[in-house]
């Protein structure tokens, strides 16, 4: 993921930088034309004086021989503009072979500043807009990003000392960081802290159907167990066919316990029991599954509110599908309104998702993305934070995911 988003962003950077250079070049050209004009004027004056001189010489041949000093003086004056011409010609020749470098040197020599106008970058930004949309960045987020980029670039004076690429990249980074402005969260720190007071950390997972809640719970349980924490699972999805059995099978594979009731039982009660179990046995973390539900289903949203009210979890984690488009924002917002989300897990990132959903969800609810689900193995859960994403987007590293299957 992020590969294509990255390509798109770097394409924009080079386009804007090119624009800055060519604009500087153009200013330089007009400046060059001015010099030529002055030179021509000079030449005319000199020619006139030469003519005058020859007239004088013709009429006053005697005085001419005496007055050689004047001729020498005029000759010197004629010589100097031709030197200037030579220099300009030389520069133009270099320019033909290495326009890019020349623009820079001339700009330095002449100190030509560039100020970008809205018109200058309108086309480039429009293209970026379409490309971001294609990378599944939601419409509102795209508008905000492009707006921020425009605000940073239009009207800024770029001097010869500046590096246009750097300025553009920084503007883009700022725009993205602005969108991902929420705080990072350290889940391990939280566990350590609660451990001191001998309390389990309770994490409830919510989301619409089929985004990957149950699988993400199994992956996180595996990760926490490997870090030396004890974990118990709560089979809080008491509705969907096979949900309890699915969690049980994962638990067996990973080697953790599941607290379960019958199918159709009260979800809050199951999770409550799991918390009591964890307290009694000194278990560090409770990971609670819940049934998938559409945010438009009022009854089921009331139910999840009740679950959160009764079980008072430390974290409510929203599980979102990275393949989702603009709806990702709606889902995150609706769930956040209902139960106040603390963090997000984004799944199916290995399915060539373009990563736009990461931007969209984070922007919509202002909450951090904690992990990315990147495959079908228990290890395929990657830690995520804003700097990580910015590094991935602007760094050299390529991201490749496993396509092996474990469960």
């Amino acid at each position, binding site marked *: 993921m992020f590969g294509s988003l990255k390509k798109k962003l770097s394409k924009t950077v080079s386009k804007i930088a090119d624009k800055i250079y060519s604009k500087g070049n153009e200013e330089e050209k007009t400046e060059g034309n001015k010099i030529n004009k002055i030179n021509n004027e000079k030449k005319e004056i000199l020619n006139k004086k030469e003519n005058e001189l020859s007239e004088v010489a013709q009429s006053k041949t005697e005085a001419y021989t005496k007055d050689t000093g004047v001729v020498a003086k005029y000759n010197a004056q004629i010589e100097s503009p031709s030197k200037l011409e030579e220099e300009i010609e030389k520069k133009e020749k270099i320019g033909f072979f290495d326009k890019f470098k020349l623009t820079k040197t001339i700009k330095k020599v002449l100190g030509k500043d560039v100020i970008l106008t809205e018109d200058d970058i309108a086309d480039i930004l429009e293209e970026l807009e379409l490309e971001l*949309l294609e990378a599944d960045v939601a419409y509102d987020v795209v508008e905000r990003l492009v707006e921020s980029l425009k605000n940073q670039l239009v009207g800024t004076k770029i001097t010869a000392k500046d590096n246009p690429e750097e300025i553009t990249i920084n503007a883009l980074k700022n725009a993205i960081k602005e969108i991902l402005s929420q705080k990072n969260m350290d889940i391990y720190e939280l566990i350590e802290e609660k451990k001191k007071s001998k309390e389990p950390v309770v994490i409830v997972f919510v989301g619409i*159907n089929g985004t990957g809640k149950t699988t993400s719970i199994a992956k996180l349980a595996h990760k926490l167990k490997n870090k030396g924490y004890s974990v118990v699972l709560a089979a809080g999805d008491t509705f*969907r066919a096979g949900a309890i059995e*699915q969690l049980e*099978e994962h638990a067996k594979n990973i080697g953790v316990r599941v607290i379960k009731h019958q199918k159709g039982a009260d979800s809050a009660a199951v999770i409550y029991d799991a918390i009591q179990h964890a307290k009694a046995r000194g278990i560090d973390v409770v990971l609670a599954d819940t049934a998938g539900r559409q945010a438009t289903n009022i009854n089921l949203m009331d139910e999840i509110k009740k679950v959160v009210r009764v079980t008072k979890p430390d974290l409510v984690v929203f599980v979102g599908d990275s393949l989702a488009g*603009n709806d990702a924002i709606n889902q995150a917002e609706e769930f956040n309104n209902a139960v106040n989300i603390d963090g997000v897990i984004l799944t199916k990132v290995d399915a060539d998702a373009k990563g736009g959903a990461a931007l969209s969800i984070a922007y919509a609810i202002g909450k951090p993305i904690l992990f990315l689900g990147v495959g079908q193995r228990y290890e395929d859960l990657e830690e995520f934070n804003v700097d990580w994403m910015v590094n991935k987007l602007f760094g050299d590293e390529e991201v490749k995911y496993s*396509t092996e299957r474990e469960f």
Partner: protein
Amino acid sequence: MLDKLGKNITTALNKLKNATFVDKKLVKEVIKDIQKALIQADVNVKLVLKISKEIEKRAIYEDVPKGLSKKEHIIKIVYEELIKLLGEKEQKLELDPKKQTIILLVGIQGSGKTTSAAKLARYLQKKGLKPGLIAADVYRPAAYKQLKQLAEKIHVPLYGDESKTKTPVEIAKDGINHFKKMDVIIVDTAGRHKEEKGLMEEMKEMKEALKPDEIILVIDGTLGQQAKNQAKAFKEAVGDIGSILVTKLDGSAKGGGALSAVSEINAPIKFIGTGEDVDSLEPFDPKKFISRLLGMGDL
């Protein structure tokens, strides 16, 4: 479902209705609004540009037919272009009553294949047919149990292999032998995506071994811009996809991704899923759907 898209497009078209004079500028403005509405509904960006260019061209250069005002004509053009996207006619799942039909369900992880398998069985059962279900997903934990619970609920026989000793292809083949007397056999498969080459290959094998009469691509209604590429990969692996079933349209999803898939693989949407319940499956009618979308009633 699709309420917001419908509202946005209607707002755009109302600009036309309320205008005293329709000029090029207004047409362009309206088309821009429609573009925005379609992109927000997750219709593929390139596809949106293509449709809107066509609408613009027709709106500006086409002669207004007799009896229609310029405004009505433009609304008609928008309607026609959207219909073109979905396929003109309602396409039903055609079953040959004289022979047994084998249906294969494929799709990305979590798109809703298993639930849809049970819904489809229920739908056919209500039509007086005898369906049988085959659980050929050996990867996802408790996939067999999930379908078993659903099958029991609707009293449809299920064939599967709980011991996980057989490959998916073996299970499906044995299941077909087992269900000789059934009218329709529905085969549920594991979720997979286009990057999982091994699984795409396995699906191809499955198709060659079973020779299904109908392959149904199950698509999540929330699917975004990736719908096009994923649908393409499925089509390349199994050849003919007969129909598309769009799920989760009871939520806030606008299902535009599914439209992109339709146009990419040239298969019609035959069903939509509108809830978790086994009865929440509806046949899909593009004309009704678009007219409802545009708030114009049945044309």
